[in-house]
């Protein structure tokens, strides 16, 4: 083509999307998850350059996404499916079978790993799951390589009729690099489903034959890959026999090259024999043998588990995780890799021409900065109301922005997608069987509920579980970048979808008690939570579901905060303590003050006598607010007493304590949502007067 290639700085995920569009992907599915979320939108966007854009869908979960892509590949079309590594766990069932049965059209499965982990529950290595499932896996070291591997992956997939995994890590996904754009291929294969029940619906007896055929296929792929120049990047040593060689894959390979160049040992000039394999499984053995024959010891650098180490011949000559030269957990950052390389070079007695110099170290290290919900986020209001309304409860939660309710003490568990509901059903049952009246309130986001919440809810209803479930419905998938949910009916590529009504879905799961609220109405939210627990508690209790609807403050700030209510903190009052005055007011021993005290400052001496431990009491006034008989006494100060309740239970980034512990509003963060007006028991947070 005479036309000059357009060059763009692309995010790694966009580069993958570009590669897919250039290679003619026809069906693309995904479920969002950091660090994979930007792949599908890139396919949809670049796909518009083609006369026949690909079909793109946000599937409701990763298992569904794999199955949709797989069935289309059965018909001969080119398909792809993207997810994060823990999503691959959800999809593992169809993935395992897909290796046995194979495909007709090429299928690429992208599983984005997160060594570190930076934004995940685990730092699992998807390459090991590819090995487990017996699928070839490619391990790009950069956005450019990720794009360049897509077309060969399709050729491999179609030649051997097997899905191929591409495993980028976070540094590839969220790296940016200049990419020369190629013209997208117009692939317009008709969808032809050739009936072959012995393959597509193979019974277990047939599966043995398929497994044997798969093993033979993998051996053929390994032999084919051994001869590939692009999959095996080999830098031979300048001298005949080196003391140390390196076998690497992925980002660790790219970083090791930079570090070695900075140490004065450029691999391109043969300073150290260096083999980078872009396909860790099935491992191309011949190039590895060549590396082994060129040096004494081989240092193996890969993320995050020792797959190359496991598959290499002559394992006793390898230095890596097995020998303790490479740490068994955590990301291989330049600092970690630098130490690993320095130790290996020292032990192999390789001279380092330009050793790393002295580093700048300073004693004053700031405290770790915890992520927090955005100012104005309605989840914060819900979590505050939850702690006020049902203190002393257990609060299972789930995967999403709202995990950050941790900061407010309103998230007790966070395990995997949908586990808030199943955990809550189990916890509420064991408490009830044990005679405990502990409130159990689960929180889950809308997208997570569609992903894998409904099955747990059906199970809870069917088996008679009774707890409060709050579905935090902000009409989007916020944490991963505002992807639409089934409730919106909006689809990834603009094809007509249909909204799936959340309330109807909850009703369909068999729930009879459902209330919809806006958590910005804090008083109503508290009342509704209490009402819901009354429905769920007791021997005859049943499921109670609250759908809490409010627009996402990051996606639609104007809608989330339609009325601006600027606040200020009124002055500073001296420290105060709660006082128990049961003689005058006849304490009824209801225990509300004991349950709500955030400081654990109250103890029950005997019936009708509460003791306040002055050293622990922060003076927050919660006990005085909940006491039905006014036995707990503390008058509102009308000014900040420095109790810190708003900081710990409301945890807004715009509220900060000064050196004396008095709270101030940080105007750089405040969005004037006004939610904190109802938080302070002393009335110290007040609306700003006009013009002030």
């Amino acid at each position, binding site marked *: 083509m005479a036309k000059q290639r357009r060059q763009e*700085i692309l*995010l790694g995920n966009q580069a993958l999307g570009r590669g897919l569009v250039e290679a003619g992907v026809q069906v693309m599915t995904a479920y969002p998850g*950091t*660090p994979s*979320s930007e792949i599908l939108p890139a396919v949809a966007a670049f796909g518009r350059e083609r006369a026949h854009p690909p079909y793109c869908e946000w599937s409701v979960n990763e298992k569904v996404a794999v199955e949709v892509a797989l069935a289309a590949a059965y018909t001969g079309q080119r398909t792809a499916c993207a997810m994060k590594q823990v999503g691959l766990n959800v999809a593992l069932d169809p993935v395992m079978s897909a290796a046995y049965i194979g495909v007709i059209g090429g299928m690429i499965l992208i599983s984005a790993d997160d060594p570190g982990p*930076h*934004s995940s529950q685990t730092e699992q290595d998807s390459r090991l799951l590819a090995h487990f499932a017996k699928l070839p896996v490619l391990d790009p*070291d*950069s956005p450019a390589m990720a794009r360049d591997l897509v077309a060969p992956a399709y050729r491999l997939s179609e030649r051997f009729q097997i899905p191929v995994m591409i495993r980028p890590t976070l*540094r590839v996904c*969220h*790296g*940016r*690099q*200049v990419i020369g754009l190629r013209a997208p291929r117009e692939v317009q294969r008709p969808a032809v489903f050739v009936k072959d029940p012995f393959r597509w619906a193979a019974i277990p007896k047939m599966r043995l034959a398929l497994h044997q055929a798969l093993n033979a296929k993998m051996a053929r792929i390994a032999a084919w890959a051994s001869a590939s120049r692009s999959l095996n990047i080999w830098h031979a040593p300048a001298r005949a026999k080196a003391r140390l060689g390196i076998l690497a894959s992925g*980002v660790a390979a*790219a*970083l*090791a*090259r*930079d*570090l070695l160049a*900075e140490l004065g040992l450029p691999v391109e000039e043969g300073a150290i024999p260096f083999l980078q394999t872009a396909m860790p499984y099935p491992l191309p053995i011949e190039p590895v043998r060549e590396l082994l024959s060129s040096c004494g010891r081989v240092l193996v650098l890969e993320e995050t588990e020792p797959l190359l180490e496991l598959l290499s011949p002559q394992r006793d000559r390898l230095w890596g995780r097995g020998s303790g030269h490479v740490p068994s957990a955590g990301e291989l*950052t*330049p*600092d970690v890799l*630098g130490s690993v390389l320095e130790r290996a070079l020292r032990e192999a007695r390789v001279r380092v021409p330009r050793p*790393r*110099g*002295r*580093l*700048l*170290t*300073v*004693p*004053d*290290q*700031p405290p*770790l*900065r*915890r*992520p*927090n*919900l*955005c100012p104005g986020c309605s989840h914060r209001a819900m979590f505050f109301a939850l702690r006020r309304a049902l203190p002393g409860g257990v609060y299972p939660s789930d995967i999403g*922005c709202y*995990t*950050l309710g941790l900061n407010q003490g309103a998230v007790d568990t966070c395990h995997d997608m949908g586990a808030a509901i199943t955990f809550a059903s189990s916890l509420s049952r064991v408490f009830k069987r044990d005679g405990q009246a502990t409130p159990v309130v689960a929180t889950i986001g809308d997208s997570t509920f569609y992903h894998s919440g409904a099955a747990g809810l059906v199970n809870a209803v069917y088996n008679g579980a009774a707890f409060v479930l709050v579905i935090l419905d902000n009409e989007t998938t916020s*944490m*991963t*970048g505002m992807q639409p949910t089934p409730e919106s009916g909006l689809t990834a590529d603009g094809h007509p979808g249909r909204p799936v009504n959340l309330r109807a879905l909850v009703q369909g799961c068999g729930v009879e008690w459902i209330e919809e609220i806006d958590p910005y109405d804090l008083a109503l939210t508290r009342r509704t939570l209490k009402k819901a627990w009354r429905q769920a508690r007791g021997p005859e209790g049943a499921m109670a579901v609250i759908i809490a609807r409010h627009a996402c403050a990051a996606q639609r700030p104007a809608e989330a905060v339609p009325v601006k209510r600027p606040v200020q903190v009124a002055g500073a009052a001296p420290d105060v303590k709660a006082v128990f005055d049961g003689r005058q007011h006849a304490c009824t021993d209801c225990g509300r003050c004991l349950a709500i005290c955030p400081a654990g400052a109250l103890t029950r001496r005997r019936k009708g006598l509460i003791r306040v431990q002055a050293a622990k009491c922060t003076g927050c006034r919660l006990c005085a607010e909940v006491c039905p008989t006014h036995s707990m006494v503390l008058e509102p100060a009308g000014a900040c007493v420095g109790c810190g309740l708003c900081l710990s239970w409301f945890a807004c*980034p715009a509220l900060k304590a000064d050196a004396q512990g008095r709270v101030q509003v940080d*105007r*750089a963060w405040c969005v004037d949502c006004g939610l904190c007006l109802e938080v302070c028991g002393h009335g110290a947070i007040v609306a700003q007067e006009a013009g002030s």
Partner: protein
Amino acid sequence: MNARDWQAVVAGVGGQGVLFVTRVLAAAARAQGRRVLISEVHGMAQRGGAVVSHLKVGRFQGPLVAAGRADLLLALDPGEAVRNLSFLAPGAALVVNAPDLGFLSPQARRALARHKVRAICADASGLAAGAGAAKGANLVLLGAAAAAQALPWGAEALQRALGQDLPPQHKRLNQELFSLGRAAPR
């Protein structure tokens, strides 16, 4: 400095525009025909957590800067400057959003001097707020960095990079903020 490889770390807090300012630097490098590699942080970390991005210009293959190798640390928050100081190469530039180095202990200031770090302070947040664009501190600080010649390209190259792919009103505001930084007292 143009022909050399160049590495920078940009640090701040979610919402301060760390990624945006990194992309502006990359666009300026691109306009000079240089190869660039960037590493960004997305996801949970963006929710008010510490955000750091790496930029490598030249013949690099890996996206991350190693400790002791950065030519520039551009810090939109003094605390995040402290957290990332070890990236600085001897003789490198530290450009920080603070009126002065008062956020550092005397010991840390001495360590900086021993490492021959060139520290450039500018109250970018204050200047941006004064201009009615509190979120624009990132570009004010970039302007201060350009004026102090802490970047391998002149201010004009950045001025051009600032306007790329933006609607005119944003472009104008960005360039105003950048100019404000260039004229900032340091």
